[in-house]
C-alpha cells in the first residue's frame, strides 16, 4: 500500500477558480442575449470578435512565455464579454479587436496574468479605444430596428485603420421613432432632458450593448451573490453611494440634477457595479475595505458625470478605485481576534 503524505487540511471545498469564472460567464449570457435581441447582427458580431480576440491574445502570450494554456480558467472570456458589452453596438470590429488585444496584453498579461492585474482588464481596453477612437465610441445606432437581424450596421465592417463611414443616412432608413443619436446621460448633460425609468428598463434608449438591461444585470448579480461567487457588498456600496450622492445633489437643486433612479439606471453604472467593480483581483479583501472601495466608485462616478468633461464616469471611477485598492487593503486590515484587549493593556 502506498501512503500519501499531505498536510492538513485534508478536505477542500468544491470552490475553484474555473467554477467561479464559469458562473460569471453564465450570468452574463442573458445580458448578451438581450443586447443581441436589441441590436441584432452587429452586436453579435462585436461580442464574438472581441471575445475571440481576448482569447487569442491570451493564448498568444501563453505561447510566447512557453506556459500551458490559461484559457481554461475562463477569465479571458469574461474580459472579452464585458468589454464587448461596454462598446457601442455598431463599433467597428477592428477597433473592438484592438480593444480586446489591449485589454489582455496591457491590462492583464503585462502584470503577470490572472490575479496579478492592478486594473480591470476590460476597462483598460475600453479606456484605450475611448482615447484612440473618440468619434466611433460615441456613434450610436437605434435599438429594435426592423432590419437588425438581416443586415449589419455600415460601421461594423470598417476596413482596419480606416475611418468608419457616417451612419446618419443608414439610421434614417431604419425608420425608428425618436432616435436622437445621443445617450441619456449626454442628453441630460447638454440638453437637460432626463429619460424615464421605463425607457431604461425597456431598452428603448441609446446606449452600449450592456447598458440597457438593468434587470438582467441585477438578476445575474443576485444569482452570483447567492452562490457566493461575487461580493455583494461592493455592488451595494457602489449603488448605494451613487444613489445617496445623487439624492443629495437633487435636494440642493432639483431643477438641474436628475433623480437617483436616473443615475442608477443610466450609463454603465449597473454593469460596472455588478460585474466590474466586483472583479476579485482588483478589489480589496478586507471587510471595511470593500465598503470604502465601493463607496469611492459610486461617489466618483457621480462627480465625473456632474462636473467632468465626460458624460459617463463609471469606467474611470472603477479604474481609479482599482488603483486605490491595495492602499485601502493596507489601511483597513481587520482587527485580529483578541487583539483589542492587548492594545488596551499596553
Amino acid at each position, binding site marked *: 500500500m502506498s*501512503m500519501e503524505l499531505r498536510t492538513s487540511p485534508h478536505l477542500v471545498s468544491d470552490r475553484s477558480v474555473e467554477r467561479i469564472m464559469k458562473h460569471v460567464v453564465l450570468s452574463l449570457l442573458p445580458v448578451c442575449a438581450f443586447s443581441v435581441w436589441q441590436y441584432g447582427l452587429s452586436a453579435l458580431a462585436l461580442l464574438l470578435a472581441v471575445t475571440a480576440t481576448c482569447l487569442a491574445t491570451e493564448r498568444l502570450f501563453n505561447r510566447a512565455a512557453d506556459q500551458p494554456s490559461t484559457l481554461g480558467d475562463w477569465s479571458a472570456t469574461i474580459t472579452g464579454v464585458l468589454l464587448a458589452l461596454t462598446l457601442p453596438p455598431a463599433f467597428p470590429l477592428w477597433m473592438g479587436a484592438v480593444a480586446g488585444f489591449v485589454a489582455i496584453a496591457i491590462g492583464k498579461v503585462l502584470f503577470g496574468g490572472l490575479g496579478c492585474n492592478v486594473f480591470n482588464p476590460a476597462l483598460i481596453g475600453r479606456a484605450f479605444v475611448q482615447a484612440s477612437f473618440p468619434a466611433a465610441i460615441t456613434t450610436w445606432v437605434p435599438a429594435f430596428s426592423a432590419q437588425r437581424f438581416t443586415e449589419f450596421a455600415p460601421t461594423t465592417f470598417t476596413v482596419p485603420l480606416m475611418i468608419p463611414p457616417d451612419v446618419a443616412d443608414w439610421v434614417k432608413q431604419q425608420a425608428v421613432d425618436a432616435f436622437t443619436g445621443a445617450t441619456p446621460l449626454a442628453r441630460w448633460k447638454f440638453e437637460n432632458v432626463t429619460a424615464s425609468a421605463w425607457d431604461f428598463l425597456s431598452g428603448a434608449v441609446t446606449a452600449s450593448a450592456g447598458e440597457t438591461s438593468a434587470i438582467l444585470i441585477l438578476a445575474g448579480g443576485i444569482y452570483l451573490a447567492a452562490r*457566493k461567487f461575487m461580493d455583494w457588498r461592493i455592488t451595494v456600496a457602489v449603488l448605494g453611494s451613487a444613489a445617496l450622492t445623487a439624492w443629495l445633489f437633487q435636494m440642493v437643486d432639483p431643477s438641474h440634477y436628475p433623480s437617483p433612479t436616473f443615475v442608477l439606471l443610466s450609463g454603465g453604472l449597473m454593469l460596472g457595479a455588478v460585474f466590474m467593480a466586483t472583479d476579485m483581483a482588483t478589489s480589496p479583501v478586507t471587510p471595511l475595505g470593500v465598503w470604502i472601495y465601493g463607496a469611492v466608485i459610486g461617489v466618483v462616478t457621480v462627480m465625473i458625470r456632474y462636473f467632468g468633461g465626460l458624460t459617463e464616469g463609471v469606467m474611470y471611477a472603477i479604474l481609479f478605485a482599482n488603483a486605490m485598492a491595495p492602499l485601502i487593503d493596507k489601511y483597513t486590515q481587520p482587527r485580529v481576534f483578541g487583539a483589542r484587549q492587548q492594545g488596551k493593556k499596553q
Partner: protein
Amino acid sequence: MKAEVKLDDLPLQDGEGRKPSAAPARRERAAHAGRRSLLFRLASLFRSKGTFAHGIHPAYHKETGSLPIRRLPFASHLVVPLAQHIGKPALCCVNVGQEVSRGEVIATADGRISLPVHAPATGVVEAIGLMPAASGKMEECITLRVYQADGQEVRVRKPRDVDAMNRQELLAAIQHTGLCGLGGATFPAHVKLDVPAEMGIDTLVVNGAECEPFLTCDHRIMVERTQDLMRGIRYAMRASGAPRAIIGIEDNKPDAIAAIAAALPDDGSISVQALETKYPQGAEDTLIYALLGREIPAGQRPAAVGALVNNVMTLAYLGRLLPAGEGLVERVLTVAGPAVESPGNYIVPIGTPLRFLLEQVGATSSAKEIILGGPMMGMTVSSLDVPVTKGTSGVLAFAAAATAGEAPRVYPCIGCGECVKVCPRFLNPAQLGLLSGKREYVEMAAQFNLDRCFECGCCSYVCPSHIPLVQQFRVAKAYNRKNPVT
C-alpha cells in the same frame, strides 16, 4: 480539536510572575466582559445557541455518531511511546523480558510536567528502543508482546476516596492516572487543572463541540458515559477551583445534549449549552467566545478571561479512572473515512499499531491517506507501524479521490477574499499568502499577525485557487522560530 500548546506556554509555577492579587485581574476581566457583552448579548437576542464569527461549514460525515462504542481485540504487539504528552517524556522503569500486568506503571513521570505510562496489556516487554512515531521521526518506545490467552483485566488498581482528598492530593492522583488532553492537545491534565487561585477561574468550559468532520468519539462518550463525564467535571471543578461548568455541544448532537441535560446536578453549577454546528467551534478561543462572550487576549491562555477548557473525553476518563485508581491504558477513538468498511467508535488499547487497527475495521486497498485526528487539523502518517497514542482521537482512511484527489491546479490568488471571510482569528490569509510567496516571513509575523494563526485550515479549505495557505504559514512560522529577530 487540537489546541495550540507550546512548551513555553506552560502554566507558571505558583508564586512566580503572577499578579500580586486576584482583585485587579477580576476587575479587568469584568470591564472587558462588559465591553464585549453588549455586542454579544445583542447578537444573542437573535439566536438560541452560542456561536462565533466566521468559520466554515464543511460536510460533516458524522454517520458513526449513531453507532455504539465497541471494543477491539488486542494486537499481538503493542508499541507504547514514552512521549505521548506535552512535556518531558516518561522514564522507562521496566526491562526487556520483564512481565508486566495490564495497568502497571511501565514508565514514570519525569517531574511535574510529565506523565507516567501504564502497561496497556498483560504481556512481556520485548524491546525498548526507537520505533516509528506519528511525527515521522523515530521515538523511544516500549514494545510489549501481549499474552493472548490472558483475560486482560486491569489488575493494578488502587481505588480511593476522591471526596476525601485535598486539592494537592487530587492533582497528584490525576497525574498518576497518566491522563492528558485526549482531544489531541495531549497537555498533562493535572498541570492544566492546577490553576493558581489568584487567576480566579470562574468557569470550567467543557468542550463537547467536536467540530472536526468524521470524528464522533466525543459524541458517543457523552451519550454512553454521561455519569463518568459528570463525575469528571466535578473533579475538575474541585481541582481548578472553578465554581461552575458549562458544557458546549454543537447542535448536530441532540442526543448528547439531551443525555447530559438529564444528568445535570440540581445545584445548577453545571449547565449545557447548544452551539451552532460550525468549524472550528471547538477551538479554545472560539468556544469561550461562543459560550461566555469573552475574547481571549492575543497570546494569552483562557485563564486570562477566567475560563479553563477541557475536552469531554478527558473529563469522562478522569471520572472513570480517578476513583478506581487506574491508569490510562486504552481510549475511545473514531475510525472512519471512505476507505473503511466498518467505521465506528472503538475502545483501542494504547500502543495498537495502525496496521492492526485498520485490518480490524476492514480498510480497503483504496486507502491512500491515513490521518491521525480529524481531516481539518490531523496529520497523515508515513507508516502503518505508527501506534495509537493517548492523543489519537481518530484514525481516518481516505482514498485519494475523497480528499484533495488529483492534486488540483494551483492558480495565483485571485483576491476573492473568501479566506478573510472565514478566518476565525480575523487574519488576512490572502495577504499572508502573497507575502509567503515572496518569503517575507518576518513581515508576515510583524505586520499581519502570523503567530495568531492556529492552522485550523479554513482558509485552505475555501481557497478557489487551491493555494496551500496553511502549509505556507507553517513554513513561515518554522522559519521565524529558527531565525528569531533580535
